[in-house]
């Protein structure tokens, strides 16, 4: 009998603990993994996040001169790997969690970037922003070699390999020629 009284006391003394959602917005703790927001200006289109995303919520489609990144919130498990792996920190976790939607298309984010053709064979191989980013970074790195290899980054990987092996062969011939 006593536990019934204790339960009764528990019921009455604790009062109503119900949160007044949706009238009031319930407080969300700092660091909540809500909706990952993609910053369109920062994203350079390297595709690392799409390779890393376990449920393939991020998918990349490369067609002709268009590089398309699609993020579908209906499959994103909010794990934060894209935020970790992005070289330019284009992902940020917002604390929005009210993502319900009546249609599937409202849950999609689509980013289209320009792709560039390779100077050697004309094939589309990367996005314009990746090149600009690489060029900016490359110039400080390469230092002495900037001149000769500066245009190497405008070649697609295959042409780059061909060009690199040719320049090696030339250097080798020259050295043999002088000796």
């Amino acid at each position, binding site marked *: 009998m006593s536990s019934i009284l204790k339960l009764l006391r528990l019921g009455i003394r604790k009062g109503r603990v119900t949160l007044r959602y949706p009238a009031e917005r319930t407080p969300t703790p700092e660091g909540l*993994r809500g909706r990952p927001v993609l910053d369109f200006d920062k994203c350079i289109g390297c595709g690392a996040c799409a390779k890393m995303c376990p449920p393939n919520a991020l998918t990349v489609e490369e067609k002709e001169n268009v590089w398309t990144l699609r993020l579908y919130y209906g499959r994103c498990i909010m794990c934060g790997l894209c935020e970790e792996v992005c070289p330019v920190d284009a992902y940020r976790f917002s604390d929005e969690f009210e993502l319900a939607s009546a249609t599937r298309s409202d849950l999609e984010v689509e980013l289209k970037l320009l792709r560039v053709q390779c100077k050697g064979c004309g094939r589309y191989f990367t996005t314009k922003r990746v090149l600009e980013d690489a060029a900016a970074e490359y110039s400080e790195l390469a230092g002495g070699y900037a001149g000769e290899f500066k245009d190497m980054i405008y070649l697609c990987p295959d042409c780059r390999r061909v060009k690199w092996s040719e320049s090696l062969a030339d250097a080798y011939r020259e050295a043999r020629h002088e000796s």
Partner: protein
Amino acid sequence: MKTDKNIVDELKNRFPGGILKVGELREGQLLVELRREDLPRVMEYAHNTLEGQFLTMAGADYVDSLNRFIVDYVLGWYEQGAVIIFRAVVPRGDESFPASTPLIPVADWYEREVKETLGLNPVGHPNPRKLLTSDDWPEDLFPMRKGFRNEAPPPVKADAKFPFIEPENAGSFNVVPYGPYHFAIHEPIYFRFHVDGERITAADLRAGFNYRGLEKIAETKMSYETIPFVAERICGICGSVHGEAYSQALERAAGFETPERARWIRAMMLEIERIHSHLLWLGVATHMVGFDSGLMQFWRVRERIMFLAELLTGNRKQYGMIVPGGVRRDIREDKREKALREVSEILAEYQELLDAALGLGTLQTRLRGVGYLSNEDARRYSVMGPVARASGVNIDARRDYPYEAYPHFEFETPVQTGGDVLARTVVRAYDTLESIKIVKQALETLPDGPVHTPIDYIPPDVTSVGLVEGPRGTDVHYLITGGEDTVYRWRVRAPTYANLPVTPLMLVGETLADATVVIGSVDPCISCTERMMVVDDRTGEERVISGQGSLEGIK
């Protein structure tokens, strides 16, 4: 104190020619190779005579130079903290091996699964029916073989039927379908009861509703870094347990030592998960016997733990914290203090509620003497966790196979001998109390230092076993590391996989009213089990569990 070496020596002199080779994998884990013909006898000796707990059994498809299958039986000796893997080779072309199920019934499910997913036929197995794959899955298509491509599933046939077991005298009885969507059990599990009036005389279950082929996805599509996110989503309640068992197996294979602070945080996350899982079960169990206020009160206390988890990890469940190499998020000082205050409040509130709810007369009458499991049956079926500890089997992987920061915490493991649903309730209730104290200790003695250091090199083709004490029992991850930055074979054996074959054993003789709470008392996590199966089948009359034969029915 017998060490694992003594056990192997005893095996050697018991089977002079049988043991081919004994290898030391990592500390505490031995690999014993033997011929496949000796498997049943050695297994019976090791499991019944030497009293080893049956941990898991996995097959693997080796397409390397030797081009053959292997079959591994893993047994554990909790007192010695030893794990021994018994490996037998199955040549390609003659894919069969003698089944151990007639001698040790506990191997029943594992062998059926190997038959179904890898095509290794357990000769002499009493119940070779489907376990995981759906009714319409072709018999000769083996998904876990390396050759099977994930993207080429056969078309769905809607009318396929599952061959249910009808005891001979089923005619006059009333067949009661139970599930797959049952109000009280929130997971698809399908029982077929044969009832005489309201008394259950035979029970048969079909599952596989939750088989999502996560192991195939991990092998083919994922890498070492993303597998923890698959592991966590095996189960929505004890996700971190799987993440931890996988990371532990991988780190043991790579001989890697996680940083000290990460080990504290990992232990704390596991205990937070145990608290929320046990409170969830206490609420659901009381709801199952009609005490709805129990559900409301226990889940009110549980909600505070969910807020605490969200504060620390950013998500209420699926914390995404435990990955190979350590933990993904550090705990800032202000959060640690807030968490400490929160935990002491939860402790006070839980004790108050426990004292009020457990003493309730009507609740106790509904739980006492229901779903009894004797100590011998608990040992014979190698049941795990609270179900075992409620029947007097004192096993607890946190204490017997110490991992992470548990050696630094003081906690006892509550053990009851009642063996009925009430005993399981008491064990889980006081387990929760211990866990809250552990979280408190972890928060108070959190050492400084890094929380994550990347694993630089993982050697290929290393077999390793991870053991973690989840809320429902010991979760065993069997892992063979692969070459291209992902696992070669990853077998998850959740504790419910060991506990669920026992349910029809407890159900027979009970009334339909108690069926729900008996099934619930095992705290089945169907998605954890990922694959469940029929317990008993018909191999002539002595195997059928029916009212008359009941327990004697099983040798």
